[in-house]
């Protein structure tokens, strides 16, 4: 699904990302771990064509992302609060995204029913603008927004940070369900190996812009993984 080919990103002469090549097959749940500044967000920004590669390219479903916009029709993402529109209510935000992804209002309403638990009665039907929600609730809105319209690729940057423990568990369940369908390629970054282990089929670790570990989670226990990633996590 996602092919990285000789990708480099250079800021002011510093090589911040250097990925000679790797592939994420369709339907894989892909976990990205690494310390601050390891290049996780840079990689996601390149994948979403928010920054320009210095060299090489990323192909998303055979579309070179910085040459053609077609990847937008099957890819969704939530990186930070710049993916939210503050002056809309949550419902309006979801309807807006739905309209862009050819979903009717009824479809969205049905879709939202499934996440009533996750929103914990604090978000839906409150007629509150997104800008007036707490940071954590804003994040919930952004994450659920990426699930609208059955995307083939979902990109989430640090989805667990800033969420309360209950919500973290619920989110893990939601993401695990999506991963189990094997229909959606899920890319999730995190500092926390614990969360990533539970939802990912494969964990890749970045360190200073390079891949230093790339393992299948099925083959190891969590303890083994922890020891394995001891250097970084």
């Amino acid at each position, binding site marked *: 699904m996602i092919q990285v080919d000789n990708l480099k990103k250079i800021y002011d002469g510093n090589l911040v990302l250097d990925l000679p090549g790797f592939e994420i097959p369709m339907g894989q749940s892909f976990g990205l771990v690494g310390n601050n500044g390891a290049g996780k967000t840079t990689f996601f920004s390149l994948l*979403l064509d928010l920054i320009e590669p210095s060299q090489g390219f990323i192909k998303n479903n055979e579309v070179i992302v910085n040459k053609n916009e077609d990847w937008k029709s099957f890819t969704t993402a939530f990186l*930070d609060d*710049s993916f939210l529109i*503050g*002056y809309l209510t949550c419902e309006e935000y979801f309807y807006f995204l739905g*309209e862009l992804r050819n979903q009717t209002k009824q479809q969205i309403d049905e879709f939202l029913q499934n996440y009533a638990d996750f929103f914990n009665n604090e978000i839906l039907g409150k007629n509150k603008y997104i800008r007036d929600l707490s940071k954590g609730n804003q994040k919930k809105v952004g994450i659920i927004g990426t699930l609208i319209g059955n995307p083939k690729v979902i990109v989430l940057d640090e989805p667990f940070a800033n969420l309360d423990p209950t919500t973290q568990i619920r989110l893990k369940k939601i993401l695990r369900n999506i991963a189990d369908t094997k229909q959606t390629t899920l890319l999730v970054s995190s500092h926390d190996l614990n969360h990533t282990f539970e939802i990912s089929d494969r964990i890749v670790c970045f360190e200073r812009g390079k891949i230093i570990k790339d393992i299948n989670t099925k083959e190891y226990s969590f303890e083994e993984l922890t020891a394995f990633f001891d250097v970084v996590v």
Partner: protein
Amino acid sequence: MTFKQLANLEWKGIKRKGGMAQSIIMAIGKGYFGLGYLIIMTLISADLFEMAAEEGIDPFQGFFKYAVYLWLGDLVIRYFFQKMPTTLIKPLLIQNVRKKTIVNYCLTKSALSFFNFVNLFMGGAILLTLTLSYKVGFVTGFLFAFSFTIFLWANNFLVQLLNHVNKFAVPFLVVFAGVLALDYFKYVEVTAYTKFFFEALYNYPFLIVVVAAYLIVLLVACYRFYFKNLSLDSTVVVKKETYKYYDLNFLNRFGKLAPFLKLDLKLLTRNKRTRTVLYMSLAFLLYGLFFLLNPSGAFEGSTFVILSGIMVTGGFMLMFGQYVPSWDSSYYPLMMTQNIPYRKYLESKWLIMVLGTLVSMILASFYIYFGWNVYITIIAVGFYNIGWNCYLSLIIGAYVRTKIDLTSNKNAFGDTKAFNIKTMLLSIPTVLAPMIVYFILTTFLKFEIAIIVFIAIGLIGILLKKFMFDLIEKLYKKQKYTTLKAYK
């Protein structure tokens, strides 16, 4: 923490803002206008005596009479262009910096404003004129020029209060507008009263104490205002807006553009900053009256009618268009990753401007009162605006790239200006091009034919939409990464 450290922080902020080449060009433009303003104000101050003499009034009496206009001009220009002394306070609040230091720093910064130097030059010009041309004693001349300068300096703080304290600004503006109106329609001659004030300053030099006291009162008021509002919640005053629902489904007829149109209407109505645009657009509708109601009739003639036409029909287009796509800056990454073809996004912005212009044209119907010619000119300019200036606004917008914070508009330390020199400079072609075209047309053709040709030019612009959008889309695509970076 000292002033030096605060100034240092600020300097780094300016230096590292990005878009250096652009800001240098802007700085040159600003410098040019600034110098022009300085020279004009200085010359007027010096010439006021002479001008009065030419009108057959005693030069001194004339000066005292008209001096109030110098003060007024200074105040108005400051109100629109003087930057408020903003400082990045949030990270400083919990550091070891006394509140007093922050406030003092802000006030000192504002005291070093360019406009205060203009006042100094004006004072100097008055002193030189008094002592050299009118042989007034140096001490008398100096004291008068100095109290005049202090009186204008007080505007520095007056403007800050006007900008920040609504409780103060509203009554002030109401009284002020009332007095001006009375004067304008000749019920009261305000200058006859203000004359006494300036004359007294001249005749009784010790009154400089009163002027100084006035300055100090405003300074203290400013100090207290800033000091009181130096916490995050009191400045932000989180007044949550209640949710308003309106049925915008009628817009669905625009098909693929509908979601964006609906979004833009919400953008316009639900944010303070954008609501200002709407109010300003309404104010722009009245722009024509400024010329047409002038009793002297000095502004009659096509050039001014066309200028008002541009402002009347294009007020919204100018105010909104210059900040496309900056209005969406806080969620630009979202827009860039959604299933949105760039062209549809731009077309919807264009359509909003076109609709805004059409509404302005309809609302401007009352200009028919001033005669058919005036009205038809305004309508013709409206078509020109739709045909060409809407594209131009999009092109200008691609270069403006100002990160707009829609939400934190209420902060006393935030920059609330919806109006700045940079965008004004960029808007010059929008205003100038139709004026030139119109001037050429009316010089060579009869009025009616000229108007028809002018409308035709506008319509041609609309027909060229595909071509223009190819151009604009390419431009925006080329700028995509720079724009994203600027909004970070």
